[in-house]
């Protein structure tokens, strides 16, 4: 009996974290003591009404459907779910060994049951741009997901969110090699496309036969027709319209989309040295307008040319850059987000991990270091949403946007606040009271199946089972109560 109830509790708590197993109808009403909309002033005793997964009203006295589930918590603060503009977590093996692999898609690496997707809910993150890791040159296409769902398709908010490109160095490779491979990639793309045009003029049909061999449907409109090369790259192809688009090899096709301005690039720069390489590659191949720089290390020192180029940046999780003065040996601290804030570069913040240095903490640090609260909150909500071209869908609590709402015990940027509920697209997907892992960490209450916890000398231990008789009895009672 004890085992049965324990398992049932475990199952129930698992369900709380994997909610799509019994997804709701996307209809919910949230009433909170304070609603931080991210779009105008906070609303005291506010109401957020969500229907069919979308926010239909935010205000003080909004009417709700009679059959909507109501989360009525005057003691809590509601705010828009945080948006992670770039993350290489949540995947099984996030780095690709092939240097140039634009044809890969994180769809095949994202692991829906990865602990990361469970843990980000506790930090109030509801939208994540998952991108390949930095050990590559061109890593593949990323994907924007929400941290709930049992399949990648269920999780997907937007597929093909952009190509991961690495402009700096990586272990075992010099900067020169990395830059050279990057240049070569676009040179080879150009040579390949020129050959396609020439072969077509010469009446050769290798490309068509290869496409058919790969199983591409050449009768589909998008494959059948050719069209002139678009975009603003410094190089142009003459007569490209004579090549049916379906004949472009799928290994090269994502790069062509990038050059034509139809795909975003998340370009990782490990240092200031890499920034120029990144911007130059983007500029000459016509994707500067679709480029987001993902910065790390001392890359902030190139802030002026970044500001000049007009690109947005995702800042590395080590916000406080510390270097030693070469002469005095004293340490000099630079708070990186403030550099970009002062230069009016659009910046989003990035979690290092899903706990202490998560987005709320990064944003709070900004406030302490001279960035106003509104801009700091924007850097983890609206700005990453805009950078991901999801500005109309997530990032604030406004009519028409996805119903992604976090309910916390206090201010979103306070260390004493804990996330109590998370609603994604109108479904309650996280309930702290059912989160046994959070209780173990924050309350010292071990999970039901984690074995004996407190050693109480007064309670005799059964030498055969190792269990304490009274403890066992107590446990099944509380389990029974929880079930109700």
């Amino acid at each position, binding site marked *: 009996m004890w085992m049965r109830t324990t398992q049932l509790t475990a199952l129930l708590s698992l369900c709380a974290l994997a909610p799509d197993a019994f997804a709701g109808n996307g209809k919910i009403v949230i009433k909170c003591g304070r609603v931080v909309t991210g779009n105008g002033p906070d609303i005291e005793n506010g109401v957020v009404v969500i229907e069919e997964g979308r926010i239909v009203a935010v205000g003080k006295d909004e009417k709700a459907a009679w059959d909507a589930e109501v989360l009525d918590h005057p003691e809590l603060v509601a705010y828009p779910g945080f948006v992670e503009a770039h993350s290489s977590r949540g995947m099984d093996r996030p780095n690709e060994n092939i240097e140039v692999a634009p044809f890969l898609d994180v769809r095949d690496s994202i692991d829906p049951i990865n602990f990361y997707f469970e843990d980000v809910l506790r930090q109030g993150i509801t939208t994540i741009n998952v991108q390949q890791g930095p050990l590559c040159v061109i890593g593949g296409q990323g994907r924007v997901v929400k941290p709930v769902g049992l399949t990648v398709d269920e999780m997907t908010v937007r597929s093909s969110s952009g190509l991961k490109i690495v402009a700096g160095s990586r272990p075992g490779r010099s900067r020169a090699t990395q830059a050279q491979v990057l240049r070569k990639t676009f040179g080879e793309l150009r040579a390949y496309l020129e050959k396609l045009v020439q072969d077509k003029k010469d009446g050769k049909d290798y490309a068509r036969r290869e496409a058919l061999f790969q199983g591409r449907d050449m009768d589909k409109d998008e494959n059948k027709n050719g069209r002139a090369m678009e975009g603003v790259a410094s190089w142009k192809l003459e007569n490209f319209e004579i090549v049916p688009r379906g004949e472009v090899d799928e290994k090269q096709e994502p790069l062509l989309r990038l050059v034509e301005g139809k795909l975003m690039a998340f370009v990782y720069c490990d240092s200031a040295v890499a920034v120029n390489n990144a911007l130059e590659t983007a500029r000459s191949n016509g994707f500067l307008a679709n480029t987001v720089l993902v910065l790390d290390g001392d890359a902030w020192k190139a802030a002026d040319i970044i500001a000049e180029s007009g690109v947005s940046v995702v800042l590395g999780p080590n*916000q*406080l850059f510390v270097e*030693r003065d070469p002469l005095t*040996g*004293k*340490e000099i*601290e630079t*708070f990186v987000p403030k550099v970009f804030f002062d230069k009016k570069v659009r910046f989003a913040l990035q979690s290092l*991990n899903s*706990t*202490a*240095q998560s987005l709320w*903490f990064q944003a*709070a*640090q900004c*406030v*302490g*270091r*001279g960035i*106003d*609260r509104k801009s700091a909150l924007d850097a983890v909500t609206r700005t990453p949403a805009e950078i991901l071209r999801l500005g109309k869908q997530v990032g604030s609590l406004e009519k028409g946007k996805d119903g992604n709402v976090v309910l916390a015990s206090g201010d979103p*940027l*306070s*260390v*004493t*606040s*804990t996330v109590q509920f998370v609603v994604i697209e109108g479904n309650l997907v996280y309930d702290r009271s059912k989160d046994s892992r959070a209780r*173990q*960490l*924050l*309350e*010292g209450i071990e999970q039901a199946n984690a074995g004996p*916890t*407190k*050693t109480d000398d007064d309670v005799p231990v059964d030498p055969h089972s190792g269990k304490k008789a009274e403890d066992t009895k107590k446990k099944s009672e509380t389990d029974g109560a929880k079930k109700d």
Partner: protein
Amino acid sequence: MKSLIFGLTAAVSLSSGVASMPRDDKPESKSWIIWADRVYTGTGMNFDAGMVGVGGGKIAIVAASRGSDDESSDRILRCYAVTAGLVDASVRITNGASSVEQSNEIQPNLRVANTLDPFAIEWDRQLRNGVTSVLVNPPDLNVIGGLSVALKTAGADTIAERTLKNDAVLRGSMGSEPSRGNHPAFGRPTDFFSRRPTTRMGVEWAWRKAFYDAAAAANDSTRAFPGSERLVQALKGDLTISIQAWATQDIRTAVFLKEEIESQAEFKNGLNKPRMFIDAAAEAWKEPQLLVRAKIPVVLPPFPAAGRTRDNSFMAWNVAEELRKEGIPFALSSHGSAAPENALAMQAGYAMQGGLPFENALAAVTSMPARLMGVADRVGTLEVGKDADLVLWNGQPFEPSSRVIAVIVDGVLRYDARDKAVAK
């Protein structure tokens, strides 16, 4: 909660206020007036819109009122909040393994102070995070590693001049660390570097043997050994023992060691009064009743993000609040980390996330570690006559959305980042 007496003091001294302070024009001037929206004295009295006056390196006045906002002087420092300088009772700044004497597991007479570098960059890092007094322990690779030193993180260029208290505690370690790297008798040949013990029980044995030997030496001077007089001091309660013990099994071992000394016949004649605190007691939440029973305070290690921490232990985030409820005195520590998410001020914040009230969190990073280190008469609170170690904050202390904007140590403004921070 404003005090009438403090208010009166303020009224009297404000009129002469700034002018009456001893002043000189050197940049290291030791007289300041700090005006803060919140003055957290750490004595249970907090003032809104109060002031702290510093003169001659000491706190001269703490007052519940201040002058008008348009008063201006370069002696006046303005901030949102002011607290006493933070104190870390387990800072772990050492010269690494090279400062461990490997010839013997029991080294009660060695001083870590002799190995410290006053120019090390770590002192600055602590200072920037508002930590002004620290307890530096010998590394925990011996069973009894030696004598710790309590000192300031800024000041003169010698360790001696920065020292608050020499031989502040006798330091040792339980658990797996003292036996880490020691060679077992099997597996590989015994060599010059082979040391004992190699197991937890061996560590415990070394502890007990040291005290029994010391007790014997106290009665029979022919049995004295290097450092036995330090152990005798510890048995008499004249030298506090600090034992590192992460896991609950090691905390028990430390508790039982103290109780054994208190009860066994060998330790009669005044050798049965050891004073002890347990450092890095991550699992203190598991058996707090033992600590209550043995009257042992603890120093908690940094809060681990996912609970699991060193020596196979699990630290729940409500551990500080649990200890408060049980009435066990405790201090928090960052173990010397200065990263924004790990610094001592954030440890206080994390303890508050676990339910600890602000006043107790403040005490756990100021007055309580000062008491454990035996320097509470000089640092840890904002009281007249104490060392002028102050931290100026631009927001609510311990929130990640506020930061340390200036630090005063012994009346000298040692860290000043006011221009870089926007006050709230």
